[in-house]
């Protein structure tokens, strides 16, 4: 009974995401889905992929990466370029998309391998600045390409998948990402990765091949960021290197940290919430109030992080959190039930 329960629980996120996709698909088939909502869904799917893949490195491998946008940039540019070249002979078809995804994913994965190499030698903050440097290097290189190759400062024109159901494809890829990364984490390899996070020396002493698993973590994370990049290039008419600066990497890192380190579901929820919040704040605060959006975002960020992490607030957190409250309620119910039983 308990085992069965656990199984449903561990697949709940796939089921919920698939159900939500089907729900929106039905909405759009009956013509009730606004185009802006479809765009928002595409954006959410891309953010989820980025957050889940970064979570593998930051939350499970325990290495701080500030260059996730760099991998996405590689995927967006190379995948987008391949797509733009193939649109002629193959048309803007599903096959083109698949080839673009494969190319973008592999190229990003190679970059993940390259950035994983210094990660073997560097610790903590040194690695953080290296990943940041990597992201900026990639961006600068693409920004200075010629107009014929990658568009340079104007940006690379990419085919937009002219289909209002593109978000369905995005969500299918989200499911693929979840499937691969979640299964990786739950497998023997995932336990090795977590062991490295908890204590690298102890992990090495128990015979875990630290080199191999660190590289594996970086490559997997980069591949899915690259795939997200290809999807991004498909949602836009033009890919510009400007958006892939380190602020974008930080945005993804913020999503992962707010979602809770080492929690895939937390990353998903916070990616959805933050994308939604960003969009809503942008809709509500127009004109002169638009500046308030960043202010509110910054304040929320600071308050949440301090509230969740301050050692001084530990007692308060333990007293008033969701788990404790639900536990109290169930206890009360149980007590009432047992009292009833005794009376009867």
């Amino acid at each position: 009974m308990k085992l069965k329960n656990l199984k449903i629980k561990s697949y709940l996120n796939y089921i919920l995401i698939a159900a939500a996709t089907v729900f929106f698909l039905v909405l759009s088939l009956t013509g009730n889905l606004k185009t802006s909502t479809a765009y928002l869904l595409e954006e959410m799917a891309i953010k989820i992929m980025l957050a889940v893949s970064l979570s593998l490195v930051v939350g499970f491998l325990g290495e701080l990466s500030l260059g996730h946008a760099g991998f996405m940039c590689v995927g967006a540019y190379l995948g987008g370029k391949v797509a733009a070249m193939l649109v002629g002979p193959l048309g803007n078809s599903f096959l083109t998309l698949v080839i673009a995804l494969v190319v973008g994913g592999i190229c990003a994965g190679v970059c993940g391998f390259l950035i994983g190499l210094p990660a073997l030698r560097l610790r903590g903050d040194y690695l953080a600045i290296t990943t940041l440097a990597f992201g900026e290097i990639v961006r600068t290189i693409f920004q200075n390409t010629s107009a014929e190759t990658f568009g340079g400062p104007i940006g690379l024109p990419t085919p937009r998948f002219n289909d209002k159901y593109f978000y369905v494809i995005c969500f299918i890829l989200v499911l693929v990402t979840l499937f691969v990364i979640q299964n990786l984490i739950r497998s023997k390899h995932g336990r090795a990765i977590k062991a490295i996070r908890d204590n690298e020396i102890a992990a090495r002493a128990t015979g875990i091949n630290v080199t191999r698993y660190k590289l594996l973590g970086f490559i997997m994370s980069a591949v899915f960021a690259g795939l997200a990049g290809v999807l991004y290039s498909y949602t836009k008419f033009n890919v510009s290197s400007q958006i892939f600066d380190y602020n974008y990497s930080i945005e993804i890192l913020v999503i992962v940290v707010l979602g809770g380190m080492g929690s895939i579901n937390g990353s998903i929820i916070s990616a959805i919430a933050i994308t939604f919040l960003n969009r809503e704040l942008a809709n509500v605060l127009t004109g002169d109030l638009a500046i308030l959006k960043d202010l509110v975002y910054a304040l929320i960020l600071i308050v949440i992080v301090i509230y969740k992490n301050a050692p001084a607030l530990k007692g308060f957190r333990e007293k008033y959190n969701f788990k404790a409250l639900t536990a109290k309620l169930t206890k009360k119910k149980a007590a009432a039930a047992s009292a009833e039983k005794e009376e009867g």
Partner: protein
Amino acid sequence: MEFLTTFVNGLSLGGIYAMIALGYTMVYGIAKMLNFAHGDIIMVGGYTISLFLGANPIVAILASMIFCMLLGVVVEKVAYKPLRGASPLAVLITAIGVSYLLQSIAQMLFGSAPKFIVIADLGILKIGELAIGYSTIITLACSVVVMVALSLFVKFSKTGRAMVAVSEDKGAAQLMGINVNRIIMITFAIGSALAALASVFFLLKAPTMSPTFGSLPGIKAFTAAVIGGIGSIPGAMIGGLLLGVIECFAQAVPAISPYTDAIEFSILIILLLVKPSGLLGKMRREKV
């Protein structure tokens, strides 16, 4: 001749980077945190100067330094102090939040368009074929003075030695009767004042300021601090000067000038591959 001009310009730019890098490296050494909002203090300093420019420029600069000192201390007290002892990543994210906050406040107060802030027009010094701006010379001189003064302060004053002690072992320093909270506060104050001073020299070089101005110099100075070995004060100076010279030489060659940032960051990565803790950083081997 052109070589010499570029070299002097590079040293002067490097001096500015070194000043900012000192703030990074001291805060890192003592509070063990990456203060991502440090770059934005430069921006705040620049705007504060513009508010006081009606008076004497020197007064404006001093006012800006004092304001940034207070700001640094307040930020430390409100945003970072509650998180002392929490995970480093949480502190990092808070610092990022503070950075966003400062940028958006500046945007509200001064608008997002770049603003012209002319402190003084100093002219150009000509010796034969050599032409160097007076601002460059002043920048270089000031940065040397600041670096020497800071080195002496850290080495000989009681507070400075307390700083070194805290950065080496916080617990032991506390047991020796050092008020760690006070030392951290002083570190933030000094770092922020140096950032404000750096903004003066940036404005002398190019008199514009925008809310996101601080990001890139902040990252560059952070790179400089890491090249020198983060936590090491002479390291930050060497790293800053090195980075400034490299930047100016890369910009002087037309073929590679668009890739200046990429070159600087590549040098960082290559250097870290050879020396994983920077030029002067201490390698701490983990023991079981």
